[in-house]
């Protein structure tokens, strides 16, 4: 069973960029890739709980703004020091010009 939650309109996220999305006490990062797909991960870096949405998106990588820990935002995979714990990812869908993430 899926619990789809509306995040924002698609045009509220630039290409190759990220926004922060808070919902029911949890924080998420929602991304738009350079090839115009949407993705979502936990909002905080697994190294020191920094908001990833303040970081830089480059291709399929999100880089933490604090210590440059890198993850693939498509798979959640940690890409090396100082991060070694993967990010949780969430399913995303686009419907009628809005972005939804699944928090099932």
């Amino acid at each position, binding site marked *: 069973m899926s619990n789809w939650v509306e995040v924002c309109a698609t045009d509220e996220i630039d290409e*190759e960029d990220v926004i922060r999305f808070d919902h029911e006490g949890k924080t998420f990062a929602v991304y738009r890739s350079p090839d115009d797909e949407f993705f979502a991960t936990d909002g905080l870096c697994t190294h020191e709980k*920094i*908001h990833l949405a*303040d*970081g*830089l998106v480059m291709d399929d990588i999100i*880089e933490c*703004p*604090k*210590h*440059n820990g890198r993850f693939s935002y498509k798979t959640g995979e940690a890409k*090396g*020091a*100082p991060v*070694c714990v993967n990010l949780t990812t969430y399913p995303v869908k686009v419907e009628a010009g809005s972005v939804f993430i699944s928090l099932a």
Partner: protein
Amino acid sequence: MSHIVIIGAGECGARAAFALREKGFDGQITLVGEEEHLPYERPPLSKDALLHGHAPKLVSDAARYAETGIEVLTGVNVERIDPAAKTVQLSNGSSRAYDQLLLTTGARPRPFPGLAGANHRIRTLRTHGDTVALRATLQSDTHLAIIGGGFIGLELAATARKLGAQVTLIEGLPRILSRGVPEEVAAVVAERHKAEGVEILCGVKIQELSEGRDGAQIRLEDGRTIAADLVVVGIGAVPNVELARDAGLAIDNGIAVDEHLRTSAPDIFAAGDCCSFPLRHYGGRRVRLEAWRNAQDQGLLAAANLMGAGEAIASVPWFWSDQYDLTLQIAGLADGATQTIRRDMADGAFILFHLDAGGRLIAASGIGTGNAVARDIRLAEMMIAAGVRPDPVALAAAETKLKSLLAA
């Protein structure tokens, strides 16, 4: 089996050891450190570790060293390197033969001139043990005097205020953060400290520093005397070069390495705070950096070059400091700039972009609450590395995305 010995078990040495394994090195790795702890991250020592009394934030837990076959010797000093025999003599009486050696010996606090060895009420801050000792003394009614208005001193001042201590910070130069931080940025930091109740005395010379039974006393040249329960000296660091020097390696404000982190001896590399190296983006000038990111980057690079990659240092200097809810980030080296462009951002955050005479971006210095400047400083770092000559008008306009200037 090939054996790589790494002397110095801080951020740099530990990162190098893991990177060797990640790159497929299947020989023996021995990491030797004088502290009792496994390698840990030093940045929290002046901040959360001091505030909350946290245990050391380990680079990695013990299991991962075991799983990856990295032998860690803690609480062990290296007494001597014999580059001819390719052995290191350890303080536990044993010796190890190496095929290649990596020196990540770090730096230690610069002692106050003329002050003798160990003190109880006059301290420095470099290790977890130092933080534990400071925490034991710092209470809500403690008067803490800090000598030195650099990052260590200022971060300590912020944390001490959070703990309720009364804080006086003494800087000999006319302003705080005069090494590497522009005046406009340093002024924001100074104002914030004053608002938080820190007394900052700049341009003040110390005549004598002395310790009593329950405190310490600072006598200033202008005749004033400051009595404190605790004095912390934060006047910079000196690189740990003694082992290298005694082994006959070239020393030049640190263990001198080439652009591949190779010392003057075959099969010996050095990385991190202990070494000086040529900085490509700044005409090859020789620098030594005391910064967490540099320690990490050079640890990774040393691992690659120990395996024969022959990669040159390409990173741009980058560092940060957290004080209260302010974060300052600087990429590049601003001395040599002829033009400074200011970009004002939301909530009082701003970035100064420093350009050389040819219009090339050589540094960017930003300050704001939280991570307000982080993304743009990161982009500036990439612009510096790429040798971009950005349009000053676009730099000043906050609505212009720096990413578009990087691509240009």
